[in-house]
């Protein structure tokens, strides 16, 4: 993939950065918050850098911080990560034909930087056709570095600020998840899913305890959708 930088490649990367800039600004405070909350749970700056660099999935990382405990509930963390990131299977499948002209190994390694925001931008850019390597991987790499930088910054400044619950930072995470969830509440089915998941998760939390509420709520919501949901027309 490392062809000499032609004027076209430079233009593609420049366009990619322009397109992803708003998402980078939006991700910055979330990265800071993630770093601060993770250190409050006992992770250090190196752990946070590793997590943001290797996992690179804000929703799953923040959910992991929420259910993080001593001893570390590894199985629950992996399961929650799988549930939250299963959407990447669909997103990467939809991008697959648009990058089919690139070398296989490059595609596999490069798809590590696939995230919601750059996926959406790339789909829009590709239309029905191909997407260039400088655009997709340039955008993904910039977004990846942005996320790592701000989470590391949050991790190194978090301890100076002190207990995050004192200034409500713990609830910033909850409010962010409410905002993300509201973005999905667009149909009768999704509202039913959200209500069912909330009830089941709270019930499980009060009876069995954390982190099983994630599994109970998620499976209940998904079941409600599968049994009662009305399939919507989706663009292929």
């Amino acid at each position: 993939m490392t062809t000499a930088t032609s004027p076209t490649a430079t233009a593609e990367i420049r366009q990619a950065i322009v397109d992803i800039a708003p998402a980078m600004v939006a991700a910055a405070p979330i990265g800071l918050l993630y770093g601060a909350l993770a250190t409050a749970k006992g992770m250090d700056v190196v752990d946070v850098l590793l997590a943001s660099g290797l996992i690179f999935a804000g929703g799953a990382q923040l959910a992991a911080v929420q259910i993080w405990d001593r001893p570390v509930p590894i199985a629950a963390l992996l399961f929650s990560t799988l549930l939250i990131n299963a959407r990447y299977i669909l997103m990467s499948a939809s991008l697959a034909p648009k990058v089919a002209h690139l070398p296989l190994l490059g595609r596999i390694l490069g798809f590590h930087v696939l995230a919601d925001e750059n996926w959406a931008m790339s789909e829009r850019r590709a239309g029905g056709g191909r997407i260039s390597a400088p655009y997709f991987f340039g955008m993904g790499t910039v977004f990846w570095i942005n996320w790592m930088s701000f989470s590391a910054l949050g991790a190194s400044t978090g301890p100076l600020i002190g207990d995050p619950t004192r200034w409500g930072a713990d609830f910033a995470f909850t409010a962010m998840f409410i905002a993300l969830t509201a973005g999905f509440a667009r149909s009768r089915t999704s509202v039913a899913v959200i209500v069912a998941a909330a009830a089941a998760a709270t019930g499980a939390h009060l009876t069995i305890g954390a982190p099983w509420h994630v599994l109970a709520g998620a499976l209940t919501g998904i079941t409600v959708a599968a049994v009662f949901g009305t399939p919507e027309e989706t663009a292929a």
Partner: protein
Amino acid sequence: MSEETATLLAILGMAAVTFGCRISGLLLGPRFRPTGRLRTAFDAIPPAVLTAVIAPTVLATGWPETLAGAAAIVVALRAPMLATIVTGVVAVVALRHGLG
């Protein structure tokens, strides 16, 4: 197992699971196109998981969290994410002082 080892294992495991999701769609390609109920179930995963993670915080922690959560929901349906976060944080801090 030490705390550090468990932390590292959790991070590496989460990374492997996530990378697996990212490339499995690439390798399956256009053949993986869930339809009907499977598609509906797949679409329900993000809101179901997001809700499940935070529901106990909002519904079973205390009045400050429940009321601040309700305020955040109202804002979230109308305004961008940043407004929702600010509303939730300001409300929870004020209510924890007032009701706590």
